[in-house]
């Protein structure tokens, strides 16, 4: 049994046990949220960590997944799974649209362009009231499975599956291609790598995964309002990737778990909670530039091998 298989098995076991360790409905809800955040962090890490594209617009794809799936179910009476498939497709296509900009822009320009993308998506959700109900929101949305535990197993299972898929992808020659673009686009091009094509691939796949996470969000909270997809959401996802360890597989997962539970653990600090959160984010970046993963590797004295 290989080490990776053992790790996967351990992860499955931990996921299976979690709802029995945290038994209150409140904490089980947080677990669902955590699984969704893991999916989102994985999706952004593919674009940001592996392909090196500064993307501040990931919340747009999360929003598209949520709205397209909900509207198809509520207004057009589609089956949840068919609607989700369409929503994932729509988010992926929108990801390709953003990639069209990423092909021409770098660094901070891409950061602001993608931020603009998220702002436009948010504004469309607010203003296109005929379809989205605007700020009034859509109510009474049912989750695909009845119980919170069921929903957690579903989303966590999908997150595990996506993890394995991306893990295999970044170990394949495709992963080397993406990393080559991240390190130096011009050198990559001189090796015959079509930067535009692979950026489009990373953006499209990343967007589709964020859209997939979006499909489960409305059923979980029961309502859908544009404010859930404010640009702050993009920052939160980015914080998860950075705090955990960008460009590593396990980093964003750890980041998502830490940053989902940290605000909950800090709840007893009341109004100081978000102040501590902001401070923690700044301090992590200042003192642990490689995130938790790198700090851990330094601590146990393991050399950092590549950036896998």
């Amino acid at each position, binding site marked *: 049994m290989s080490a990776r298989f053992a790790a996967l098995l351990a992860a499955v076991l931990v996921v299976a046990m979690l709802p029995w360790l945290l038994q209150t409905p409140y904490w089980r809800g947080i677990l669902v949220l955590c699984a969704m955040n893991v999916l989102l962090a994985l999706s952004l890490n593919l674009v*940001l960590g592996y392909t090196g594209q*500064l993307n501040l617009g990931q919340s747009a794809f999360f929003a598209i997944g949520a709205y397209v799936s909900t509207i198809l179910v509520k207004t057009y009476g589609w089956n949840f799974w068919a609607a989700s498939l369409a929503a994932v497709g729509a988010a992926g296509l929108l990801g390709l649209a953003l990639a*069209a*900009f990423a092909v*021409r*822009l*770098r*660094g*901070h*320009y891409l*950061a*602001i*362009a993608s*931020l*603009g*993308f998220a*702002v*436009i998506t948010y*504004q*469309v959700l*607010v*203003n296109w009231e005929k379809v989205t109900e605007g700020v009034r929101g859509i109510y009474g949305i049912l989750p695909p499975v009845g119980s919170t535990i069921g929903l957690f197993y579903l989303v966590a299972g999908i997150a595990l599956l996506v993890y394995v898929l991306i893990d295999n992808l970044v170990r394949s020659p495709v992963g080397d291609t993406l990393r080559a673009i991240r390190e130096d686009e011009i050198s990559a091009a001189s090796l015959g790598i079509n930067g535009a094509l692979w950026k489009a691939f990373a953006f499209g796949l990343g967007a589709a995964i964020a859209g997939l996470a979006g499909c489960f969000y409305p059923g979980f909270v029961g309502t859908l309002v544009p404010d859930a997809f404010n*640009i702050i959401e993009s*920052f939160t996802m*980015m*914080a998860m990737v*950075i705090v955990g360890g*960008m460009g590593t597989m396990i980093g964003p997962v750890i980041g998502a778990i830490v940053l989902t539970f940290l605000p909950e653990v800090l709840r007893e600090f009341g*109004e*100081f*909670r*978000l*102040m501590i*959160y*902001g*401070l*923690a*984010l*700044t*301090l992590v*970046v*200042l003192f642990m*530039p490689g995130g938790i993963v790198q700090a851990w590797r330094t601590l146990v004295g393991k050399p950092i091998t590549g950036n896998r």
Partner: protein
Amino acid sequence: MTDLLALVVQQSINGIYLGCLYVMVALGLTLIYGVLNQINFAHADFVTVGAFAAFFTVTRLGTKVLGLPDTAAYLLSMVTALGVGAALGLAINAAVFAPLRERGDELRPLIATIGVSVLLENFQLWLFGPIPYQFDSPFSSETIRIGRIFFTAQSVLVVAVSSSAIAALYLFMKFTFVGKALRAVAQDRETAGLMGIDPNRLIALTIVIASALAGMGGALLGPVLVLTPFAGATVIVKAFAIVIIGGFGNMQGTIIAGLLVGIIEAFTVQYLGSGLIDLVVFVLLLVMLALRPTGLVAERKEENV
């Protein structure tokens, strides 16, 4: 004057007034980018803090403590906001930009300033609460009327103050020794260092100037903002759009783009409704990026585009 012409002139004046407010905020972002190649996401919160400083100067310090008349208290509030902004600039440079500068990485300072932004917003939320504050400039009630065109003394003051600030900045950059040194650092930090310029001090100075502008912008924006701890965030997304439309790090471009966005906003409100402002501005941004990614006034070349 025909109705249409009067309307166009009126909205253009409103637009220039708004544009001047945006330029005050956007100029700081562009200054920092030009010298440091970094984005300060907490810039928005400097605007908010400036607005709160102005609020307390107008309602307490100026009128109650010093016993100044309303107009003098408002003018004083610009100075306190400027000072508070400068102090914040000094602090964020020491805490974030200076320690992270060595690593030459564009992402981490960005995230660190997002953290600072969350910290500042929630600190103000704790201090001031979520209920919006309101204060008015004594100049807002004085209306000036020329033919069928109306504007307030406040808008004249805003245009005058921001254009003097811009002019002062321009003269400083162009004609003083320190300004010249600053431009040298922006062009090539290492070579400037070899010429005996201390880049660290000049970078600190740039951040302080930029933040002071943001603070003062807060005092000017204060009367038109719904003043909550999150007020700056509504302005900053537009400021980012302006900075990009004008060409990152390009002062001239930022000023032109700021006025342009102000005017577009005024006409959007007139013809399409105020809910669509951000939509129109950001669609313009994306069109701009697709067609002319170097910005309105091309200066910086292949580097980022």
